[in-house]
C-alpha cells in the first residue's frame, strides 16, 4: 500500500514536471508573438537609425545657423498612411507609387473545343481551331486616395484580339466621393450593378473561381447579353435596417452597347441604348455572415437592327440573387428575366436566364460545379444565342497567394446545333 502511495506521489510530481517542460501549442504561439515583436522592434530601430542618418546628412548640408536667419521649425507633417505602413516583412495586396496604389492581374489560357465550326472567339481564343493558347485580359488596376472622402479608381485592360493583337480598354474610371456609409457617389465608367457577378468579380480572372464568366454575365463586348458597363453616376449606401444590413444601389447612365453575335456569324449588334436607370437593393445580414441576397431592376431603350433602325424596344432586366461566401464555401445563385417590349408594336419577348455555382475550398484546391441556362427568343436581338444550357466542372488550385491554376470542362447544349464540349486550362496571377 505504501508503494502505491509513493507511486502516486511520484506520478503526480512527474506529470507536473512534464507538463511544465513540454511546450504546448500556446507556448509556441507566445514565442512566435514575441519573435514577431522583436522583429518589429528591430525594424523600428533600423528605421529610426536611417531617420537619424538622414537628419544628420541634412544638417551637414545646411549652412550654419549664424549665416542665415533661423527659419521657423516646420509644422509636424501628418505622416502619410504609406509611411506608417512601410514594413518589408508584410506583403501588401497593393503596391504604392507616389500616392497611386496599383495592382496587376493576368492570365494565360489554353482552350480546346470538340466542334470545329467556329463560334465567337474572344480574349485571343481562335474559335474553330483544334485548340490554342491565349492571354485573355491583362489588367492594371490603379487607385488613389485624393482626400479623406474622395478617391479615383481606374482599370486598364489589355485584351488579346485576333492574331496576337491587343486592344486597350479603359474598363473602369471612377471619381468617387463617400459622404458617409449611407451615401457614396461615383462618377465615370462603371460596371453596372445588373447582377451579383458583375459587381463582385469585375474583370480579373484571378478573383474568379471558374475560368470564365457565366454567359449571361459575360461582357457585352464579348457576346454577353446584358449591358455590363456604362458611363454615368452611381450611388450606393447602407439603409438603417438593424441586423438585416440592407443597402441600396441607384445608377443613371449611358450604356450604349455593341455586342458581337456569339454563333460565329461575324455580325455586330449595335443596340443604340438610351440612358438607363437601375435601382437595386441587397442585404448582408449580421446573423448570417457571408450571405448576401438582393435584387435589381434595369431599364433602357434599345434598337433591333434586324427590324430596322426605327424598331425600338423597351428593355427591362430584372435580377435576383443569393450568394453565400464564407468558411471556404461559395454558393452563387442568380436569375434574370430580360423583357423586350416593342414601343410601337406588339412584340414582347420574355427571356429567362440563370446560373448556379458551388465550390468548396479544400486546402489549396477549390473544386467547383456550375450550371447555366439562357433561353433567348429567335426574333429578339439575341437571335444568335437561342437556347443554351449545360454544366461546367473543374477545380482551381492555388499554388500560393499570387498564382492559381484552374482546369475546367464545359458541356453546352445548343438549340439547333451539336452540343459543345470544351476544356480550358488557365494560369491566373496577380502581382
Amino acid at each position, binding site marked *: 500500500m505504501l508503494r502505491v502511495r509513493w507511486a502516486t506521489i511520484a506520478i503526480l510530481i512527474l506529470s507536473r514536471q512534464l*507538463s511544465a517542460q513540454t511546450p504546448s501549442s*500556446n507556448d509556441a504561439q*507566445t514565442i512566435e508573438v514575441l519573435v514577431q515583436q522583436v522583429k518589429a522592434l528591430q525594424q523600428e530601430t533600423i528605421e529610426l537609425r536611417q531617420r537619424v542618418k538622414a537628419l544628420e546628412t541634412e544638417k551637414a548640408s545646411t549652412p550654419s545657423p549664424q549665416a542665415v536667419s533661423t527659419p521657423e521649425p516646420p509644422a509636424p507633417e501628418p505622416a502619410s498612411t504609406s509611411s506608417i505602413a512601410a514594413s518589408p516583412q508584410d506583403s501588401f495586396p497593393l503596391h504604392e507609387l507616389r500616392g497611386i496604389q496599383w495592382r496587376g492581374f493576368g492570365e494565360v489560357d489554353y482552350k480546346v473545343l470538340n466542334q470545329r465550326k467556329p463560334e465567337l472567339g474572344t480574349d485571343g481564343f481562335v474559335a474553330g481551331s483544334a485548340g490554342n493558347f491565349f492571354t485573355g485580359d491583362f489588367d492594371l*488596376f490603379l487607385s488613389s486616395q485624393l482626400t479623406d472622402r474622395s478617391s479615383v479608381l481606374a482599370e486598364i485592360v489589355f485584351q488579346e484580339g485576333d492574331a496576337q493583337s491587343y486592344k486597350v480598354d479603359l474598363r473602369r474610371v471612377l471619381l468617387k466621393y463617400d459622404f458617409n456609409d449611407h451615401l457614396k457617389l461615383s462618377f465615370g465608367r462603371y460596371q453596372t450593378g445588373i447582377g451579383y457577378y458583375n459587381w463582385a468579380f469585375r474583370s480579373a480572372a484571378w478573383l474568379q473561381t471558374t475560368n470564365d464568366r457565366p454567359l449571361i454575365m459575360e461582357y457585352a463586348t464579348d457576346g454577353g447579353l446584358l449591358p455590363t458597363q456604362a458611363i454615368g453616376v452611381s450611388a450606393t449606401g447602407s439603409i438603417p435596417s438593424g441586423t438585416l444590413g440592407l443597402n441600396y444601389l441607384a445608377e443613371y447612365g449611358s450604356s450604349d452597347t455593341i455586342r458581337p453575335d456569339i454563333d460565329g456569324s461575324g455580325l455586330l449588334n449595335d443596340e443604340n441604348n438610351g440612358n438607363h436607370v437601375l435601382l437595386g437593393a441587397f442585404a448582408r445580414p449580421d446573423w448570417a455572415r457571408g450571405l448576401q441576397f438582393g435584387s435589381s431592376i434595369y431599364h433602357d431603350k434599345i434598337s433591333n437592327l434586324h427590324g430596322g433602325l426605327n424598331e425600338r424596344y423597351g428593355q427591362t432586366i430584372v435580377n435576383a440573387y443569393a450568394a453565400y461566401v464564407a468558411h471556404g464555401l461559395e454558393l452563387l445563385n442568380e436569375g434574370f428575366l430580360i423583357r423586350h417590349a416593342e414601343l410601337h408594336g406588339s412584340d414582347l419577348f420574355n427571356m429567362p436566364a440563370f446560373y448556379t455555382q458551388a465550390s468548396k475550398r479544400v486546402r489549396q484546391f477549390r473544386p467547383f460545379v456550375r450550371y447555366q441556362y439562357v433561353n433567348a427568343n429567335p426574333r429578339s436581338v439575341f437571335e444568335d444565342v437561342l437556347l443554351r444550357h449545360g454544366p461546367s466542372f473543374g477545380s482551381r488550385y492555388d499554388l500560393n497567394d499570387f498564382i492559381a491554376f484552374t482546369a475546367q470542362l464545359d458541356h453546352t447544349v445548343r438549340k439547333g446545333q451539336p452540343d459543345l464540349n470544351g476544356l480550358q486550362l488557365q494560369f491566373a496571377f496577380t502581382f
Partner: protein
Amino acid sequence: MFAKPIPVLMMALMAGLVFAPSASAQLADVAVVVNPSNPVSSLSLIELRKIFAGEKRSWQGGAPVHPFVRPPGCHERLVLLRLLGMSESEYKQHWTTLVFRGEVGSEPSSVPSIGMQKEALSVFSGAITLVDANDVKPGMKVIKIDGHLPGEPGYPVH
C-alpha cells in the same frame, strides 16, 4: 498482484493531468483603441468586425474610419483574423477584392510596432486599432466592446 494498483495509478495520472498548471498563461485580452478625440466610447462586436472587414467605413457623424492592423504573426493580428473568421491568405484576398471592387480605397495600413500604432492614432482622428491590453499607452482611448472593457468578464476580443 498488479490488479489493484492499476486503477489507483490511472486515477493518479488523471489527477496529475487535471491539476497540472496550464502550460502558458492565457493570452491577454486585446484592447480596441481609438484617437482620444473620437467621441465613440463603445462598439458592438459586430460593428468592430464590420470595421475591420471594410463594411463600415465611417463613424457616426460621417468621419472616415481609418483601421490600422499589425503585421502577420503578431498576437493582435491573430486576434483580428479570429474576429473575422479568416486565414491570413483569405484576409489578403478579401481586401484585394474589396479594393478591386471599388468598395474601399485601400486596405488597412499595417504598422510594425506599438509606437507606430500610437503615432497613427495621434495623426488620424478616425483611427482605430487593436493593441494587446498590457501595451495600452497614454494617448490611446480604449473603447468598450459589447459593453465590456478588457479584463472584464465577458470581454469578447482575445
